[in-house]
């Protein structure tokens, strides 16, 4: 069904854009590295692929004149969300271009800002690309070529946005969003199990460390109890 397909594509695009935004936050900071730049490249390429396919599907549907009114309203809603998301992606890409040019890694003109973020961001990139894990090894001068490509891609996305506006005319003010203000709170209450699951996921993430600590503590406690018993028996 076209609606489900579009919705799924939009969700994927939305997820990739959010991950890209999260990665761009750290450019120029202490976590900036060639690996990060490569992750950024892969994420934005995936985002662009999704954008192109979503755009094609939505444009095809909306240019179909024989669409029922309520279906059209639904697709217009998806269209508005998609174009907003694409604007966010374009802005983040421009920002990444500017920051990448200001903080070059290959021949560093100035030191990176020590922001306190030190960990790897491969988890975020893996989430964006919908893979389990991601291991990237970028060369020492990756960012130089990457910047040129990024510039081209920014222009491409800009063109895509212009084409979209030309082909389909959806007035923003007529679209009624489905979710009301404060809906995010209701969904966190409703999705109680999922938040519990996510907590468990997070707990699962540091489980090995906690389990090891618990085991060590238990062992020390047992040893102390055994010693106390021995001492008591002896004396």
């Amino acid at each position: 069904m076209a609606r489900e397909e579009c919705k799924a594509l939009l969700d994927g695009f939305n997820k990739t854009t959010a991950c890209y935004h999260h990665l761009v936050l750290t450019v120029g900071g202490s976590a900036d590295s060639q690996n990060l730049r490569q992750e950024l490249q892969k994420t934005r390429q995936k985002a662009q692929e999704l954008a192109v396919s979503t755009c094609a599907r939505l444009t095809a549907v909306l240019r179909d004149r024989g669409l029922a009114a309520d279906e059209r309203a639904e697709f217009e809603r998806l269209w508005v969300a998609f174009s907003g998301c694409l604007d966010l992606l374009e802005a983040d890409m421009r920002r990444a271009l500017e920051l990448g040019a200001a903080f070059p890694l290959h021949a560093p003109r100035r030191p990176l800002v020590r922001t306190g973020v030190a960990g790897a961001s491969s988890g975020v990139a893996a989430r964006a690309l919908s893979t389990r894990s991601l291991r990237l090894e970028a060369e020492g001068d990756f960012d130089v070529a990457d910047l040129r490509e990024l510039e081209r891609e920014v222009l491409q996305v800009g063109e895509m946005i212009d084409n979209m506006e030309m082909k389909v005319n959806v007035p923003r003010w007529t679209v009624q969003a489905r979710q009301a203000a404060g809906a995010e709170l209701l969904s966190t209450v409703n999705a109680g199990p999922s938040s519990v699951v996510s907590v468990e996921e997070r707990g699962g993430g540091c489980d090995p460390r906690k389990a090891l600590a618990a085991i060590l503590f238990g062992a020390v406690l047992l040893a102390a109890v055994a010693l106390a018993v021995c001492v008591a028996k002896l004396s």
Partner: protein
Amino acid sequence: MAAGPAPPPGRPRAQMPHLRKMERVVVSMQDPDQGVKMRSQRLLVTVIPHAVTGSDVVQWLTQKFCISEEEALHLGAVLVQHGYIYPLRDPRSLVLRPDETPYRFQTPYFWTSTLWPAAELDYAIYLAKKNIRKQGTLADYEKECYDRLHTKISHAWDLVLMQAREQLRAAKQRRKGDRLVIACQEQTYWLVNRPPPGAPSVLEQGPGRGSCAASRVHMTKSTDFYKQEIEYCRRAMGRTRVKSSVCLEAYLSFCGQRGPHDPLVSGCLPSNPWISDDDAYWVMNAPTVAAPTKLRVERWGFSFRELLEDPVGRAHFVDFLGKEFSGENLSFWEACEELRYGAQAQVPTLVDAVYQQFLAPGAARWVNIDSRTMERTLEGLRQPHRYVLDDAQLHIYMALSAHALPTLTLSQGSAFPTWLGPPWPLSCQCSVLSTHRVQRRRTGPDHMLKKGQVSI
């Protein structure tokens, strides 16, 4: 960040210079050898590196720029206010404390920038994220902003919530320390760009920025542009100018003369009503008061205009004229003033009345104007307008100030205060009255009386 509000037409967005300078300072602080000393922040389980103390920052600034500690403190405070460095213990108060309080540097993405202004959509996403994380306990002003944003961009609310959820899920993929740091960074960014009510906004540019001078630069160089430039230069050349040496001399003498009379500069006796809540000063200096103060009478001595503008002074002068001279000159002057500042509809009737009373041959109160001015005035009376009697008025004014006033001061037995001293300096060259014998001496305020402007 999504595209913010569009820049004013004809002027592309630019980074403000003071922000660029602050960025350079922050980057030079990052130097591994000569930068600020970094420590680690120790939370319960996690250790986050790259924390600096307030005192280290102040010390580094003092050494690097060779400035006093007070100035370094101020500079550091400016950096914190603009969000380039944020405090770790009390994130809502952006002040620099020169002690062991820990601070951290902001990531370049979140640097304050007029090139990339913060957008409403991003603020909505941030508030939605905060709502989810804190289960609805936002600050009051944040709740208001949330509702207002929902009204403004309600069509994009699906996107806002989708992005908020996905961004939170993406953040979960990082380790705890990084997550905390990024959350602090984002909070600082929004504290700077959307300050809570009562906090000063550092991004306020004030009125009048973006003047036309800036917009002119970006016009394409077409023929219209050059025509405009030529016109502008021609007009600039035609403007009357005064040499700055003359201006400044006049300005100095004006200030010296008026200094003791200015209540802000030399204080006002008996007391400043705004401070002491005692309105004796206003009562004593009311426009029509029986006994004018000494300072006020001194002011009459500065120029004829002062005397005429002060109601008490004018009354005195009228009295004097009534006794020694005929008062028709001053009446004529007052009638001309009424014409200049009166209603437009009254102009023809008033001009007629003035003519009948003062200018017609054989009139009741005929004023003595020289023949050339009289001819010109009578010509102009055929098409009466507001300023038709300007020349005549100026002539009479000069006559009064040249003849009546010196006599006033030197006359014996006049009710006028006699301590007024020597005749005051008279107005300077006036090309209209080349035939009139007027004492010529340059003074400040009367220097402005050129070309027929009697008052103002």
